[in-house]
Each structure stands twice: as C-alpha cells, then as structure tokens.
C-alpha cells in the first residue's frame, strides 16, 4: 500500500544541507554604521 509521507518529513529529507562553511549573506538593510551608534 502507498502511504503519503508528511510534508515535513519530505521537506526534511529533501532539504539540501548547506555546504560546510556556508555563511548566509547579510540582510540587505539596515546598512553599515559609518561612525557610531547612538
């Protein structure tokens, strides 16, 4: 019999793991601080 797997299980199995050392890109905003934060 065919049993439908729960999406979470599929998503977990099919989720491609990030390569070792992967650094997510910085959020686009807010930008860098040029002097100091008040």
């Amino acid at each position, binding site marked *: 019999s065919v049993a439908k797997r729960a999406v979470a299980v599929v998503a977990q199995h099919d989720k491609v793991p990030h390569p070792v050392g992967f650094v997510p890109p910085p959020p*686009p*905003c*807010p*930008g*860098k*601080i*040029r*002097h*100091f934060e*008040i």
Partner: protein
Amino acid sequence: VPAAPPAPLGCDDPESEAAAEFSVNYINSRSHHGYKFTLNRIENIRKISQGPNNDIVFLELDLLETTCPILSPTPLENCTVRSFAQHAVEGDCDVKLQKLDGKFSVLASKCHSHADSSEDVLQVCPDCPLLASLNNTEVLTAVTTALNDHNSKTTDAYLRLLEIGRANIQYAPAHIVSVEFAVAATNCSAEDAKDNVEACQLLPDDQSNFGFCKATMVKQPSQDLSVDCLLYGHQVPTSDPGVTYSHPGYDIS
C-alpha cells in the same frame, strides 16, 4: 517565463549610497540652522519602478551632527562628526526621491534631530559637560557677554547675533559655560557702532558675511572669558545643482 523581479536594493549597494549622498547634500543645503549633518547609516531603502529609467526611491537615513555650522563653507567631507563625549546629536530623515534617466531629485524630505540622552553620555564620560537649553539664562548671558567683548575689541565690522548653535555647562571641577553662536557682519565698523548701534544693519545678501563664534566663560573658581570669532567672507550662494525640488516637506525639530 516573465523575467524574475530585480533583487531588492541593499542598504550598502552603490546605488543606495549615491541616493543617500544626494539626500544628505539636499538636507544640508536646505537647512538654515545649527550644523551640517553627515550620513551615519542607511536604515532602509525601497525602490519602486515607474517605468523605464524612472524609479521612486524611499530612503530612511540615520545622520550625525558635525562640528561645522550650517553656513560654514567647509566641505562636508572635511567636517568632523561630533563625538559621543561632546554630546552627539542624531538626525533621522525620511526622503522620497525620483531617479529619472540616472539623475536624482528630491520630491520630499522630513527630518527630526535629537541629542543623545544625558545618561548615555555620562555613562561613557561622567565628567563631560552636557548640552544646555539654548534659552538658559547662563547661556544667554555668556553669549551676550562674549559678543560684546568681541565687538569692543575688534577693528573690523560690528557683528550681530544670528543664532545660538549649541551650549553646554559644566559644574565640576569648575563652573564653565561654553557657547557656540552664528554671527553676521553689519554695515558698521565696531567703532561706529559705539555711537549709534541701531544704525548697524546686516549686510544685503549680495555682500553678506557670516561667521561663527565660540566662547568659554569660567565662573568658578575664578572669572575668565575667552572668545574666538571667525568670519567666512562673502560666499556666492550656490544655485541648486540643476535639480527641481518640489514639496520640500522639510522640517527639523
């Protein structure tokens, strides 16, 4: 398959920095009080396309006050940012720009400036003097005394007060009132002014000569006054850099 929408602009992207620089120059050129502000951080940016080479850009900017008075001819890049210990002042600005064929123009801007909290300053620098209210009696007395002292000693034009830029008061270990104020030359020499000061009027725009004074009045443990005034010389007003400004919607508190 329709082309994927362009990635949202990042706050540190070159295009965002160009928009922010244009906005800061606009804000300083439109301000007539206080000091020049410089960019500290691009808080947020949104770009909405209106068609080919035609975008509306919304910017949220964090600015910091510099030590350059707004009327000073010093280029912004040469202006020192007021340090934390000098009781920094921050500006928050929302600017709406249009970018048409690669050229920016400001459609509206609104700014609000506020000094850093006294607690923050004292936490970093317990003995630092704090900003005082500009209508504080000691501040007004220091400004009046300093300007009269300058006018009584100068051989140049008699100066009139334009505005008090900032003031701070220190109570320990000495009681010191420090003030900074903008001045303008009048059509009198300081000598003429002694006879009829009411006749001394600010020079017309085509001859205007603005300047700035810094003074320190020591009240305790001994009385002392030091005044340093600098006139910029006549500056030909810069016309708008060929950009249309509509609905400036600009105010600063």
